[in-house]
């Protein structure tokens, strides 16, 4: 049928090129799947609140012996680290030594305990060390959501005017400490 239709040389050449299209498409898909398998995309959801003021909040006491936490604490002129954690969160225990190291380096650290009870937080701090100044208790994650934090642990560097300057998602590993220290310095 189509063989009866006489074709020009140009049309034949075009047809020959088009025949390669499925193979090229297939190779493109192959490359996409391979890159997705070899280097899967990050599942982190960064907060859009970085660069914006900390939302207003006043949380009740998160652990006995620690003052409660309100947003006003972050507008005293000095940058502070705000650690979002929970006593039931395993990676939070893993980052405890790094938080202690940061506290020893002179970084003031406050915490928001997510869905937690003061007695459980106290037990967690007794076990893993206590780097915190003030601790607020966020039982329904409402302050966490207002900050654009998508899980525990997360840490935020807040400058002395209450602006969120830096977000660290996940546990602070030993190799992350210099970056956090630099972010605190830059927030000065």
């Amino acid at each position, binding site marked *: 049928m189509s063989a009866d239709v006489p074709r020009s040389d140009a049309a034949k050449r075009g047809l020959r090129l088009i025949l390669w299209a499925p193979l090229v498409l297939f190779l493109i898909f192959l490359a996409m799947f391979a890159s997705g398998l070899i280097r899967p995309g990050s599942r982190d959801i960064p907060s859009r609140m970085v660069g914006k003021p900390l939302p207003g909040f006043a949380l009740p006491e998160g652990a006995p012996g620690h003052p409660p936490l309100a947003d006003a604490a972050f507008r005293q002129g000095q940058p502070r680290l705000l650690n979002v954690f929970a006593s039931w969160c395993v990676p939070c225990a893993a980052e405890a030594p790094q938080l202690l190291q940061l506290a020893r380096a002179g970084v003031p650290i406050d915490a928001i305990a997510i869905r937690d009870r003061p007695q459980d937080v106290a037990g967690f701090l007794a076990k893993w060390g206590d780097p915190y100044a003030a601790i607020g208790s966020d039982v*329904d994650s409402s302050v966490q959501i207002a900050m*654009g934090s998508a899980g525990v642990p997360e840490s935020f560097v807040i400058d002395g005017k209450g602006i969120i300057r830096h977000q660290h998602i996940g546990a602070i590993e030993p190799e992350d400490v210099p970056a956090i220290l630099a972010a605190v310095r830059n927030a000065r």
Partner: protein
Amino acid sequence: MRRTFLTLLLLSAAPAQADSLMPSAALADTQLPDARQEEQATALMETLRCLVCQGQSIADSNAEMAGDMRALVRRRIAAGEKPDDIRTWLIARYGNWVSYDPPLDAVTWPLWAMPVLLIAAGLYLARGRFRRRGR
């Protein structure tokens, strides 16, 4: 020996995502008394993505954070806020990622344009075939 050791190691490994001991938030699994408000809240929850169990809506997810987000949605609807404003508020915190209702912008326009373009290409191809057969 090594296999036994590895098995023991795997068995003793704690899951990275644990759950808290706290009960779910007040409005996480309780409907609002006003049926119309509850309908609005449910419709919104079905188009908001859970942050922990990525790929489920907060209406479908059992994650604690999804429960807290459902409670947040119901609280705000009950306080008279419009569903679109709540969505905008969440997008301002988590980006478009949190919404299953993507806006039409520079990145997402192919989602709407592709079906039209594909139908146009199909019609063009079909037209060529019919014309040839007609001869």
